[in-house]
C-alpha cells in the first residue's frame, strides 16, 4: 500500500459528514461483504462504494485503487483455484468449484479493501481522532498518540531521505544482491532514524506537557463534531447495507 492517504478537499455531504459516520459506513460495507454470499450482492456493494467515491469527487482515485486491488484479487483467485480441486475441470487445472471459490474471494478482497481507504481520503485524520474523542469517548491521550505518530510520518520521511543520502555518500551500497550484504544495510539506514525518533520523543513530550496536555478534557476541543441529520441518514444506510448483506 502506498503511503499515508492524502486528504482531498471538497464540500460534499460526504466531506461534511461526521468522521465517525464515514468510518461506520466503511465498516458496515465490510461486514456486509463478509456476510454476503451472492455475486450480485458483492457487486452491488462495490458499486455503492464506487458511487460514493465519485460523488465525493475522488472517482479517479477510487478507480485507480480498484485496479490496484484487482491485481491482488487476481492473484488470490489463482491461489484458490490451485488449492480447490474439487468439481469438474474447466481449464487446465482450474475446476468449476475452484473458479467459483476464487471468484468469490477475489471479489470479496476488492470490496473489503476499498471502502475504508476511500472514506479516509475524504476525512482529515486529525478530524477523525478529534471526533473519536468527542463521539466515541476515546481517551484524549491515545488520540494524541495517534496524531503524533501520523504527524511525524512526513517529518521522518524527510529525515530518511537525508539519511539515505548521507550514507550513500559514505559508500553504503544499495544495489548489491548479496543477502548478507543486504542485512548489513539495515544498521546504517534504520539505526539513525530510530535513534533520532527516541531522542526527539522527550522534547515532544515536554512541549506537550508545557502546553497543557494533562489539563485537557473531553470538552476542551475548540472544534466540535456534532451529529447531524446527514449522519443519521448514513447510519440508516449502514443498517440497510448490513441487512441486505446478511440476507443475500
Amino acid at each position, binding site marked *: 500500500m502506498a503511503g499515508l*492517504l492524502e486528504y482531498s478537499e471538497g464540500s460534499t455531504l460526504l466531506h461534511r459528514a461526521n468522521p465517525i459516520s464515514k468510518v461506520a459506513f*466503511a465498516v458496515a460495507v465490510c461486514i456486509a461483504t463478509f456476510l454476503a454470499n451472492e455475486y450480485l450482492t458483492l457487486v452491488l456493494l462495490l458499486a455503492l462504494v464506487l458511487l460514493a467515491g465519485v460523488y465525493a469527487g475522488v472517482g479517479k482515485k477510487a478507480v485507480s485503487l480498484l485496479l490496484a*486491488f484487482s491485481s491482488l484479487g487476481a492473484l*488470490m483467485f489463482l491461489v484458490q483455484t490451485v488449492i*480447490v480441486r474439487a468439481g469438474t475441470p474447466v481449464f487446465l487445472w482450474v475446476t468449476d468449484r475452484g473458479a467459483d*471459490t*476464487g471468484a468469490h*474471494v477475489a471479489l*470479496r478482497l476488492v470490496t*473489503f479493501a*476499498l471502502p*475504508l*481507504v476511500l472514506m479516509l481520503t475524504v476525512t482529515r485524520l*486529525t478530524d477523525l481522532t478529534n471526533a473519536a474523542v468527542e463521539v466515541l469517548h476515546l481517551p484524549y*491521550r*491515545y488520540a*494524541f498518540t495517534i*496524531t503524533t*505518530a*501520523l*504527524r511525524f510520518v512526513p*517529518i*521522518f*520521511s*524527510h529525515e530518511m531521505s*537525508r*539519511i539515505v*543520502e548521507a550514507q550513500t*555518500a*559514505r*559508500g553504503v*551500497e*544499495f544495489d548489491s544482491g548479496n*543477502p548478507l550484504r*543486504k542485512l548489513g*544495510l*539495515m*544498521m546504517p*539506514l*534504520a*539505526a*539513525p532514524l*530510530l535513534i*533520532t*525518533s*527516541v*531522542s*526527539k520523543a*522527550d*522534547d*515532544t*513530550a*515536554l512541549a506537550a*506537557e508545557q*502546553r*497543557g*496536555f*494533562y*489539563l485537557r478534557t473531553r470538552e*476542551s476541543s475548540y472544534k466540535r463534531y456534532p451529529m447531524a441529520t446527514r449522519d443519521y441518514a448514513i447510519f440508516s444506510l449502514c443498517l440497510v447495507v448490513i441487512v441486505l448483506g446478511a440476507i443475500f
Partner: protein
Amino acid sequence: MNQKAVRRGGEGPRFDVASLVLVAMLLAAGFILNMTVGKALSMTGIQPEFVISSYCLAILLLRPTLPHGVLIGVLAATVIQFTTSIPGLEYVCDIPASLLMAAIVRLTGERGPRGLVPFLSTCVTTAVSGLIFATLATVVVLRGEPLAVVAMLPIVIGTALANAIVVQSLYLPLRSAFLQRLPSTGEASGTSRDDSDGVVQGVRAEGGSNESLDVSTATTEAVPDVYPGAAAVELQHVSFTYDGARRRALDDVSLTFGAGSFVGVIGPSGAGKTTLASVVSGAIPHHFAGEFRGAALVGGMDTCEVALTDVSRVVGSVLQDIDAQMVAADVEDEILYGLENFGFERSAIEKRVSYALRTAGIEDLRRREISTLSGGQKQKVAIAAILAISPRVMVLDEPTAALDPASSRMVFETLRELNARGITVIVIEQKVALLSEYCDRVIVLSQGSVALDGSPREVFSHSKDLRDIGVDSPRVTRISNGLAVTGVLDPAEKGFLTVSQARDGLLGLLSSTPVKAASHVAPSASPHRLATPAPAGDPMLSLRDVSFSYGVGKASVDHVCFDVGAGELVAVVGQNGAGKTTLTKLMNGLLKPGDGSVNICGLDTRRARTSEIAQKVSTLFQNPDHQICRQTVLEEVAFSLQLLGVPDDEAFQRAADVVSYFGLDPEAAPFTLSRGQRQIVALASVVVTNPKVMILDEPTSGLDYRECMTVMDSVNAARERGCAVVMVCHDMEVVSDYATRLIVMANGRVLEDGEPSVLFSRAELLGKACIAPPQVSELSQGLADAGFERFRGITEVKDIVDVMKGLVG
C-alpha cells in the same frame, strides 16, 4: 539564602505522556522504514515488518504492564490501519502479539531483557501476528480455502526472522539513547501529573490570573499584569545537578530579569544555557530529574511550588528542535492547542488566534500543514502558538541554529515585535552579531555560572575574556575594542554593535581628528587562511557546463562551470534555493548531471558508482545524526573505512589515531554526546578516509566558537595534505576567514567566481544573490565609498584598526 534541595527520582518508568510519545515516534519511524528500507532489504518478497519491530522495541524499552502492552498493540494497529485495507484485522493480529511480547518482557523480571531475549521474543511475536493475519485473512474474511494459509507460512516465518534480526541489532543502541535522555524517566512527570489536580484550583484561586483569561477587553493586545511590579523572572542562588551527572549544570546562579527586557544568553556548549532556559520555563524541576537548590521565581511564583502548567501560563518556551516542539499537524490546530487546554473562553479563542498569527506575521499560513513550511516559518508558528496565551516571558533556546541568515533575522524581528508589546524575551544564541543588535542585555555563562552580565557594549568590550571562555564577539565590536586599546575611544560608551554604528563612529573620528598621511597598508589575509598553493597538475574536481533539474522547466543548476585544485577552499554562497545543495550532491555523485559532466580525480560521476566516488570524495553533512549508526565512536569512524573496503584491523588502527587526534573518547556512544561533539565525530569519519575532495555542507551550523575552530582547523590540515575543499556556508564570517575562493550563486547559476575580498566589496553582486557581506567587508566598503580609499578591500579587524591608528592615532 534559600537552600531548598528538591530531589526527584528513583521510581521505575511510568506510562505517561513521554511513554506515549515514544511509542508514537517509534511507530512513525517504523512506518517510514517499511516504505523505504523495507524495499531495499526485500528478498524474494520477504522483508522486515518495521511497524511490528517498532512496537516490539517500544515494549522492550518501556517494559509496560500487560494492559499497557495491549494498548501499544492497539495504537500500532491503528497506525497500520490507516494504510491497509481490511478494517479491524490488524487489531486482531497485533493485540495478542503485543500481549505476548509484553508478557515475555515482564517475565525477564527486574533486570530487563538481556542476551537473545529481543531476538526470540520478536520472532515469536511476529510469527504469531503473521499467522493470525494469514489465517483470518484467508479463511475467515475472504472465506477461502484454509490450505492457502500454508502457502503463506514461508513468508510469515521469513518476516519473523527478519524482524528478530532487526530488533536484536537495534535494541542495545536504542536502549542507550533511551536511557541517556538526561531528563525524565517518567517519575518527574508523575509529579506534575499529581500537581495537575491542584492546577485547576491553583489557577482559579489566584484571582489575578483568572481575570486574564477573560478577554473581551483590550487585554488581547497588551500583556496581562498578574503581579504588577514583580520582576518577570528571578533566580535566587539556583544550582542544579542532573541525575547521574557529576558536575553541577548550574552553580549558584542569581539573576533578575526585569519586565520588558530583551536578554541574550551566550556561552560555550556545556555552559548551562539550556539548563538555565529549563529552569526559567519550569521544565526544571518538573520534567527533568535531579537536585535543585535555590529558588526560581516566575511572575512572583516559586516554580517548585506550582505546577508546570502554571509556569508555562506565564513563560512560553521555544526549543532548538523545531519539529519536536509542535503538537499538531497544521498551523491553526497548533495555535488552538494551548488555548483549548488552558481553559480560555470559547468566545475569546478566535480573537486570540488571529492576534497571534498577525503579530507573528503568518496570517496567510493559517490553514497550512506544518510539515510543508520552511524552518523560519515553523519557528514563527511556535512563537505564535505561545503568543496566543499571552505569556509574560518568552524563553528561546537557540531558535535560529538551523536557519539561514535571512530567516534568523526574521525570527529576531518577530521577537523585537513581541518585546515592544511588553513581553520579556530571553534568547539563547550563538549568533553574537544578532544578539548585539537586538538585545539590551547580554549574559555570558561559563561552566554553570554567570561570567559576564551587562549591556552588549559592556560585555563585548571584553574580547579577550570572551575568547578565553570560548565565545565570539561581533567583528565591529572587536574593532572598537582594538581602537580602545590605543585610547581613541571608550568601548563601554561608544563601542560598535552594528556595521552602521561602526561606520558612523569611524567617520566621526576621521572627520574630527586631523588625518595624517600614512603609508598604504596592504590588506592582510586572515590568520586562519593558509596560502593557496600554486596549482599543480590537474584539478581535483572539475565541473563542465553542468545542468540539473528536479522537474520540468525549473533548472536547479544551470550551466555551471568551474574547477577546484588541490589545497583550495572554495566557498559557495547564495540564498536558499540558489542551487548550492544541489551542486554539492552533483559533486559527490548523489545526483548525476542532466547535462555536462562532473569529473572527480579522473572519475566521471555519470559512469562511476557512488561507492567508487566515495573513495575520493567525503562529505560532511549539516546534521551528523543522519549518519551516526554505530555503538561507539571508534566503530563509527572505522565504519567509513570499512565501507571503502579497508580491512578491519587497518580501519580500526587509523580510526583510533583520528579519534585521539580530536580528543574524543573512543568508547563513548556517539548519540550520547552533545550536538557539537557529534559533529566532530562526523568530521572524524570524513577525515579518516583521506579524501582527495572534501565537501562541507554548513559545517559550522549549531556549533559554538571553539567547535567551529576545531572543524575549520582540521579542514585546513586536510588542505595542507593536498585535499580540495568545497564548502557551502551561510556564515559569511567563516567564509571570509577561511575561503581561498568564492563562488556566488543565484537561481542555479554561478554569478561570479573569484577572490573573496574582491567579491565581498561588490554590493550589486551581493544584492543580486541576496546575501549579506561579512561585517568587516561591509564596513571597509562603506568607508572607502565615503572617500577613504585606504580601507578598500580590507577584510580583517586588525587591518581596520591599523589603518585607523595610522590615520588618526
